[in-house]
């Protein structure tokens, strides 16, 4: 469902934040993550963790890939059951991706809430809103970097 809340009109009636017109929370969340490399506090925090991360939003509706340097790439739907004998996993779009160090799963709304300070990482963990596979303290470190987006 479209979310018009982020549209901001100037006095002249010109839309100032056109990228948010008719965007859903998950789209906005993806937008925020894509900005990671451009936000020093966030990317420094992410790099300190030193991992390759697969981010799964809204149960797989959107998936992104972040390398250890903080470069973010959107992925087509990934099928992790495809054999990774050469340490790769395949997207159904045919793209090949190395197996991530960690997979982090959360909703787009929760990612925005982390970034906006409405949700703490601790609450995300203890209220089971943050899922992860892989070393959990690395996943928690990645989640902390999202609070700086």
């Amino acid at each position, binding site marked *: 469902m479209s979310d018009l809340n982020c549209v901001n009109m100037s006095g002249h009636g010109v839309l100032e934040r056109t990228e948010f017109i008719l965007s859903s929370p998950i789209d906005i969340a993806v937008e925020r993550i894509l900005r990671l490399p451009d936000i020093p506090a966030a990317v420094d925090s992410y790099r300190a963790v030193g991992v390759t991360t697969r981010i799964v939003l809204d149960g797989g509706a959107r998936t992104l890939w972040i390398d250890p340097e903080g470069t973010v790439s959107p992925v087509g739907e990934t099928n992790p059951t495809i054999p990774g004998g050469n340490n790769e996993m395949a997207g159904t779009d045919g793209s090949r991706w190395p197996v991530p160090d960690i997979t982090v799963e959360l909703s787009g709304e929760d990612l925005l809430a982390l970034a906006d300070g409405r949700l*703490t990482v601790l609450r995300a*963990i*203890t*209220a089971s809103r*943050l899922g992860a596979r892989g*070393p*959990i303290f690395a*996943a*928690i470190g990645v989640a*902390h970097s999202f609070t700086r987006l």
Partner: protein
Amino acid sequence: MTISIRPDLDDLHTLPKAHRDPVRLLGEFARDRIAPTAEARDRAPIGTVDWDLVTEAQDLGGLRMGLPEGMGGLGLGAEALGRVLEEFAAADPGFALILGATGLFQTPLVLAGDERLAAEYLMPFLGDEPLLACNAVAEELNGTDLVLAQNAPYATDMTTATERGDHYVLSGKKKYITNAPVARYATVMANIAGHPGSTGLTCFVVDLAWDGVQRGATHDKVGYRTAPAGELVFNDVEVPKENVVGDVLGGWDLNTTQGNICRVTCAAIATGLARHSLERALRWVTERRQSGRLLFEHQMTARKIADMAAAVESARALWVNAARTVDTTLPVPAYEPAIAKMVADRAAVDNANTAMSLIGAQAFQRDDEMERILRDSFGPRIYEGSPEALAMTVTDLLCLEDERR
């Protein structure tokens, strides 16, 4: 060559490389320094802490095992921590608890990632002065009512936190708190005033040197006597709002998460106890003869030894499995840790019982180490979920859909 029931501390290949040396050193410390002196600590006056050995443990990282490596801690995960605490428990479970309870204070702050709280309350553990801490949850009237979230409305006379300007004022009393008589800091679970029972549970960091904090009675426990335990009394203690760990009213979720993590290491401690009984029994049955044969050559004895060994190995397999799951899964799993603790707690008691039956009159002497092991074996089932509480957790997970839990 016989099989050893003790893990090989030189073979820790399942642990991250950076954790192997610290785990080995702490394990050797437990075997070589803690075990030989356990009896003396057990007989010491209540509340006595062996600060020399605590300092040695500190130097090896024993009081910062769970702190992140980047901060100067050992950064141990659940499996590595379990390896260490199984060794300490096989030597002296009270000492394991001293270290573990300090870790329980640190865990919420590590999870919260609050830099200011870390700078104020975790930084001191990096120094050379041995500092102990505690996690103050249990109360006189509230035990399982602070373990099972569904019991929260029934908690009675909870320690209360009343909002007042930029502070909360804490009033109440905690009981059965490991390290309470000597701890410097505590994470205190208190109920926000106005919320029934413990439904408003919130976690506060309290400096136990603050005005209004009083050390109550030190408990004269049946076992785990190396670890001092006692009461903490909060007489209108002013706690700054910034000392809330996580969210106000977030205490139950935190308590449950921490409990699930902690059950793994509790299972490791119980496994250590079960192993200690077996070690004592093995020494007996391989030395004593009856009817011209060594005891272990008698079939009934052989059966008992085998059952004890199976109990230790299965308890260990379960806590290791739970640890690996906890180390690599969010949300923090509840099922594997509960199962592991249920089995290990039972193994501790059963193995002590079986060892007593094998060793007989000798084990019934005050000066035989089985006397202490027997008392200690009943410890694990008391904290972080009794067998009954664990059973309810396991059954709910097996039978109830998520929304009904």
